[in-house]
């Protein structure tokens, strides 16, 4: 296991930050719901990466345990979100999120 000469905490967290910001940019730009869900997954994945890096840095299993929970959450969330997308598509025949503005005030 080549672990001794890895770059360490900063590099990993930096990567996580970069991935998160990329996902965020995609989230803000795209109008297709499916793509937005993908970008949410990117963000979630970046957060999970940060957990693992921190866990490795401190040498405890907490990081990976958190990672398990993050994945569980992501799975449940994707399932429900896609179910909602299916319903939405059946009623409106579009996947444009800008059509979902019924809660305006």
């Amino acid at each position, binding site marked *: 296991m080549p672990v001794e*000469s*890895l770059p360490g905490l900063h590099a990993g967290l930096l990567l996580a930050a970069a991935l998160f910001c990329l996902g965020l940019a995609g989230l803000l730009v795209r109008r*297709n719901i499916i793509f937005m869900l993908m970008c949410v997954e990117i963000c979630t994945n970046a957060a999970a990466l940060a957990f693992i890096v921190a866990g*490795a840095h401190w040498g405890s299993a907490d990081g990976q345990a958190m990672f398990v929970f993050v994945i*569980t959450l992501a799975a449940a969330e994707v399932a429900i979100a896609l179910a909602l997308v299916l319903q939405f*598509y*059946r009623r409106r025949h579009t996947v444009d999120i800008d059509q979902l503005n019924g809660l305006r005030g």
Partner: protein
Amino acid sequence: MSAVFFYISAAIAIASTAMVIFNRNAVHALLYLIVSLLAVAVIFYQYGAPFAAALEVIVYAGAIMVLMIFVIMMLNQGDAAVEQEKEWLRPRGWVGPALLSAVLLAQLVLLLFSGPEETARAAHYVGPKEVGMALFSHYILAVELASMLLLAGLVGAFHLARQKSPEGSENLEKQNAG
């Protein structure tokens, strides 16, 4: 030397993520996302977390992404979707989000590097056994809750995606009457 592997994997992760967000075809984007997830799994392995890497591949890339592919294919939008995406993704629309994300990234970087200088410690290896023990001793409550969450997700997804089919219920009634 091993640092090179890290940088290569990192570069692949970033590049494929970029391809995801710029892509016009949904299926292509998903495939790029899977590549990104695999690269991240490699990084997990490099950080001495093989269990996490395995989970990443099996659950995240293998199950979740596949689920998304299924739904996209169910929607069956085809080329019309690609045209639509081309229309929606104008270069001018990228300015604001790019700015916001850049600023946020800059702040995060600043925060990362503003702390006291850490000596570069070596990453530790944390094996599956340790993770299992942590999960089922310290985090047992969270595990139970997570399983309940999954149950809720299951039932919810089933109910929310249900389609009321008029033909089916009519047939049933005809059958019962006759």
